[in-house]
């Protein structure tokens, strides 16, 4: 009896200590002798048709995509398997919010200048490449997309509120954050039951990303408390929440999806990749109601954008780098843009007629390509991201803003956020 209890106890503790880490060291060869290249992405990269195209041109290659719904679990998986030393795909997508964490472990990724094919100079916007180059000059990733910000809004709800609703007319509302929140006050007074924006964190992140300095300064020192820009953003957003401008829907949650379907908020901060998300969540029944305009409070901004990297774990690093280089060439990136709205980071692609003429039927046949190209040019440089930038945004500031939406005092929540950031950065 006693002994059985001991083993039960030990087993219990073991299962408490052991957490899910499911590795899948795949074979790199398919039964018919092809080289299998795996590529791990999150959200929508728009590569599905490109894979077929590449496979048709390279009969010896079979591409398998591992697709994760959200960035967070994808990167969690990436870092866990980096630590474990195996289980990663041949090509791993990296979102810019996690880039600094990756750069701290740059030794575990291949230098694409060394193993990759020769790539023409100046393929990417300079800041895009700079962010992924190590201090000793190694290139860790090929740029895929960027996230120039525009504003999406519900035309029908704007009309209902007596606000201008044509793309030119709304620009005045979206010229500064002050005018944006002022319009919000007007809106919620006229249209009961509908909020001005979806979630405080979504607005805050967009505001925050416009600043040159964010949570960290360039020496990787945490400046959350001393950076007055962050506190100003916080005050503005939580003020709007208190007035009832937020629909209080955590982004990408089931309730957020329902909020899109039911039309529970009138505006949405829209990086280029968000168009695909809006379309799939709001669904065909809301077609023609959403519009997008080439204006964004306080100028432009960038939210997101990714890179393709080849971890040293890859057994087919050279072939993987070739595929990654091909996928991130201007022509392919334009096709991905057409498929899912991922906005190219390639200089040539920004001027390509195919991009400038690209329209989005869901958003009333707007010339989305040209629109976001205009927005992209408003971006001067990407914000510097410190080692725990992604974690602070997703596990500290977003929950803190959510707690304000759930009724917590804004000053208390701010203190929680600052402490949380310090704990995360430690």
């Amino acid at each position: 009896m006693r002994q059985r209890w001991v083993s039960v106890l030990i087993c219990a503790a073991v299962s408490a200590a052991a957490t899910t880490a499911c590795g899948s060291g795949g074979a790199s060869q398919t039964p018919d002798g092809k080289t299998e290249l795996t590529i791990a992405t999150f959200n929508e990269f728009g590569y599905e048709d490109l894979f077929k195209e590449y496979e048709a041109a390279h009969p010896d290659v079979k591409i398998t995509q591992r697709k994760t719904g959200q960035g967070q679990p994808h990167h969690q998986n990436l870092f866990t398997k980096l630590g474990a030393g195996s289980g990663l795909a041949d090509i791993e997508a990296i979102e810019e919010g996690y880039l600094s964490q990756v750069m701290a472990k740059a030794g575990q990724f291949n230098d694409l200048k060394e193993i990759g094919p020769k790539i023409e100079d100046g393929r990417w916007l300079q800041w895009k490449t700079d962010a992924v180059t190590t201090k000793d000059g190694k290139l860790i990733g090929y740029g895929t997309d960027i996230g120039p910000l525009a504003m999406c809004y519900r035309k029908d709800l704007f009309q209902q509120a007596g606000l201008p609703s044509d793309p030119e007319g709304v620009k005045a509302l979206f010229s500064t954050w002050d005018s944006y929140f002022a319009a919000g006050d007007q809106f919620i007074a006229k249209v009961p039951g509908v909020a001005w924006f979806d979630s405080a964190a979504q607005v805050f992140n967009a505001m925050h990303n416009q600043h040159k300095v964010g949570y960290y300064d360039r020496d990787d020192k945490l400046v959350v408390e001393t950076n007055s820009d962050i506190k100003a953003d916080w005050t503005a957003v939580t003020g709007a929440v208190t007035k009832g401008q937020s629909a209080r829907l955590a982004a990408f949650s089931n309730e957020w999806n329902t909020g899109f379907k039911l039309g529970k908020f009138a505006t949405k901060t829209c990086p280029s990749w968000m168009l695909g998300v809006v379309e799939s969540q709001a669904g065909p029944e809301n077609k023609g109601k959403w519009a997008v305009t080439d204006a964004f409070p306080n100028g432009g901004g960038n939210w997101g954008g990714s890179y393709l990297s080849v971890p040293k774990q890859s057994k087919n690093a050279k072939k993987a780098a070739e595929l990654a280089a091909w996928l991130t060439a201007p022509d392919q990136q334009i096709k991905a843009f057409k498929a899912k709205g991922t906005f190219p980071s390639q200089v040539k692609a920004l001027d390509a007629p195919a991009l400038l003429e690209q329209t989005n039927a869901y958003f009333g046949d707007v010339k989305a390509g040209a629109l976001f190209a205009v927005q992209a040019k408003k971006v001067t440089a990407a914000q510097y991201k410190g080692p725990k930038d992604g974690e602070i945004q997703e596990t500290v500031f977003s929950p803190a803003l959510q707690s304000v939406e759930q009724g917590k005092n804004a000053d208390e929540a701010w203190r929680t956020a600052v402490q949380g950031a310090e704990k995360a950065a430690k």
Partner: protein
Amino acid sequence: MTAVLPEVGRGREQEPLPQPARRYRLSKLDNKVSPYLFVAPFFVLFGAIGLFPLLYTAYVSLFDWEVGADDPAFIGLDNYRTLFQDAQFWKALFNTFSIFVLSSAPQIVVAVAIAALLNENLRARTGWRMGVLLPYVASLVALTIIFGNLFGPQYGLVNTVLSAVGISPVDWQASTFGSHVAIASMVNWRWTGYNALIVLAAMQAIPREVHEAALVDGAGSLRRFFSITLPMLKPTLIFVIVTSTIGGLQIFTEPKLYEPSGGSGGGAEHQYQTVVLYLYQTAFQGLDLGYASSIAWVLFLIVIAVAGLNFLITRRAVR
């Protein structure tokens, strides 16, 4: 004079009969070693995937160890010191016990009641008995996502129903108690039927004679239930309580997937983050393996303490 006969070499008698002796030794060895060999696979496996990680976790917990870091720094018991001052850890511990009580207590009462019903002469008895096991068969992840939708704060079915009958809706995510109730309801949904079947098996093992004797003495069915059935179920009930303690203190999937987009924080203010979820967040989001290991060890000790307490109660109860 006696003739000294030369010794005739008679091999058969001279040789020390090697065959039987070896066989004997072998069989003795067989008797001694075989049992250990037969149980060895368990201990080898346990050593490799049980004991080794357990000890290695203790080792890692003494370092400032980040995933993939090249050179972790030895910091002694600092992780434990930090942990005992970590408000989030105490909150997680409170949440864990709160969810555990909210799930185990009603669950065991209901399980006994269901078992008592199933013990009656029902039509299609096997069907009913298998029916209560169905929630246990369903995938935990699917179950959690469905419950997460039902308990959605703004558009969830539970709140819609509450509003329809005139009760003000509850924010099942923001409120501490509300979220604990929601998560406990998932646990109850999954485990009540399972425990009911265990209790039912114990009920059927109660000798009929005892009941019949009570019947002759004029005891009603309620009296018989409380004076005979319940006391005789005690050992089984304690087994059920112990297993649900061990499971309950390690609850993870339900709070993790309660709001799938919310990461592993367990709510905006960690209002439903359990200890294992905090461990997971520390290890796989914060990538701080050293600190996570110290959480794992403290949880291990807590589980041992609680289960040890249960063991003492068991002994007293069985005696």
